[in-house]
């Protein structure tokens, strides 16, 4: 086992042992960071594997959050008000939003990848404006009092320990799923597309379908993060769907390591933690600092701060001898 994989597993172990070290309030705060971590990892998947830079990841995150909130509050006609159903529909909602965007952009004559970025920016801006102006889903104020997720044993996700363990399990499962996809033949095809789309097309792979599925998977995982966010904070607002959050997710992934799931995950935890620690002392300067730090990382560490450290690489059978 390589030391990188050991390090990655050690991180999971440390995260699993956190409840022993932290008080219930800190634990709840830390659980929130994990949600951001899932969102960053979902972006790193599409970024690292397919090379698509999505400036609208919050669109999928926000869709998941809104679907979760609407379902669990019984606001979607014909659908029972179940929190667990909301979670499932949140994932599907995120995946569907991504699939629609991908369907518009990848099929037919296809879109230059440089365009993908600005189309996703526009989509994120419009998503936020739509949510702000749509009275039924709460408009500018969003939706309050999203109920917690009931858990077996009579507790629910509002309990700090249970809430933390719930989010941690979902984070671990998401990581496993995305990692498995990376290492499966599916991931190999995606990397082929990243390197040379036309060649993959001429080899007979349906490039648009692969890209669409990859984006939908990324959107689904982002939707899961959004749904978990809605339960944790028990409210959603247009801010969860907009460009500002999309930008944040992008920064987390880039600072951690855009192509490595674990690096992006830790990037989100790290950046959010620093933000929490500094926001009181530097206030409005935070965004200036993080903007410049982001540029500096892009220039100096194109693989992110942790990209090389946590890159578990490919299974042996896929490596060069």
């Amino acid at each position, binding site marked *: 086992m390589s030391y990188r994989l050991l390090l990655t597993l050690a991180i999971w172990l440390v995260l699993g042992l956190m409840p022993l070290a932290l008080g219930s309030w800190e634990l709840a705060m830390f659980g929130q960071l994990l949600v951001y971590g899932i969102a960053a990892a979902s972006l790193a998947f599409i970024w690292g594997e397919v*090379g698509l*830079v999505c*400036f609208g990841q919050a669109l999928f995150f926000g869709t998941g959050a809104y679907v979760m909130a609407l379902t669990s509050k019984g606001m979607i006609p014909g659908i029972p008000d179940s929190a667990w159903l909301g979670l499932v529909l949140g994932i599907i909602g995120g995946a569907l939003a991504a699939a629609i965007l991908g369907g*518009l*952009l990848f099929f*037919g*004559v*296809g*879109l*230059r990848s*440089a*365009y993908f*970025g*600005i*189309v996703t*920016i*526009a*989509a994120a*801006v*419009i998503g936020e*404006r*739509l949510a*702000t*102006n749509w009275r039924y889903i709460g408009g500018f104020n969003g939706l309050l009092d999203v109920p917690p997720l009931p858990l077996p044993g009579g507790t629910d996700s509002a309990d700090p320990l249970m809430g933390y363990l719930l989010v941690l399990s979902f984070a671990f499962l998401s990581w496993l799923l995305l990692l498995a996809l990376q290492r499966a033949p599916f991931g190999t095809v995606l990397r082929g597309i990243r390197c040379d789309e036309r060649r993959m097309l001429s080899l007979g792979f349906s490039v648009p379908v692969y890209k669409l599925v990859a984006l939908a998977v990324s959107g689904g995982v982002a939707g899961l993060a959004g749904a978990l966010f809605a339960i944790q904070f028990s409210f959603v607002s247009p801010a969860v769907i907009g*460009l500002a959050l999309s*930008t944040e997710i*992008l*920064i987390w992934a*880039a600072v951690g390591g855009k192509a490595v799931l674990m690096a992006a995950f830790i990037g989100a935890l790290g950046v959010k933690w620093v933000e929490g620690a500094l926001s009181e002392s530097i206030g*409005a*300067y935070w*965004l*200036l600092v*993080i*903007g*410049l730090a*982001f*540029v500096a990382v*892009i*220039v100096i560490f*194109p693989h992110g701060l942790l990209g090389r450290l946590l890159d578990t690489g490919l299974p042996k059978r896929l490596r060069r001898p």
Partner: protein
Amino acid sequence: MSGFLPLALDALNYTSVLLLVSIGLVIVFGMMQVINLAHGEFFLVGAYAVLVLQGLGVPFWLTLPLAFAAGGLLGLVCDAAILRFIYHRPADTILATWGLSLAIRQAIVIIFGPSSQQVVAPLTEPVNVFGISYSSYRLAIIAIAIAVAAVVFAVLYKTAFGLAARAAMANRPMAQCLGINTRRLDRVTFSLGAALAGFSGAVMAPLMSVDPQMGMGFVLPAFLSILVGGVGSPAGAIWGSVVIGGSTTAAASIWTPVIAQIIVFSLSIAIIRFLPAGLSGLRRK
């Protein structure tokens, strides 16, 4: 008829400024294969330059060239401090401009505060055009923006600099082999694009509320217009601005701004879906 003319003039006003912003995006893309996501912040800097200069008692018309210079200078600084290290990595350059946009916008928030401020228009008396009363300042903007765009196109299509720039856009390695310093061209075009954005921000300042978010709001349609027009040639910016400017103004006069935005966005997606090279790609077929 009386409702149509002001609308047409509004559309022309918006389109002409959009054109200035879009030209900058197109030439930077052509040269560096990068969509400059900090373009909106150069626009912002132009608008705030007017605010500051007016506060210092500088006459409005003089603030326009100064805003142009401010945008250009900032563009030069960004290139010298950041872009020159990564111009050979276009994907990272796009990200870097994104980070820059965040930083510049926040710097403006820190200096001027997040709330919106007003810039006084130099011409307030409406004038009579074709029997209707219309803002004289907007008419002046139309004339100025079209004149500036004409100068930019003349530079691109009639001068040695323009020839070299278009050559570098068409075939960068070959232009280098003919003795063209493409890196210097990158810097000049990036700075020119930033200057045009700054200038546009300045002329639009009296018509918009000047706040830190105005840049993104104005440049987003410009992004769409370069997609629609095509990035293959600077002339594509004209087509794109006409389509986006016209449809935005028309849709916003009928529906709410949000619905208008969704309609224009969908229209843009539909156009690039079927014409990947944009409208300017049509002509070449």
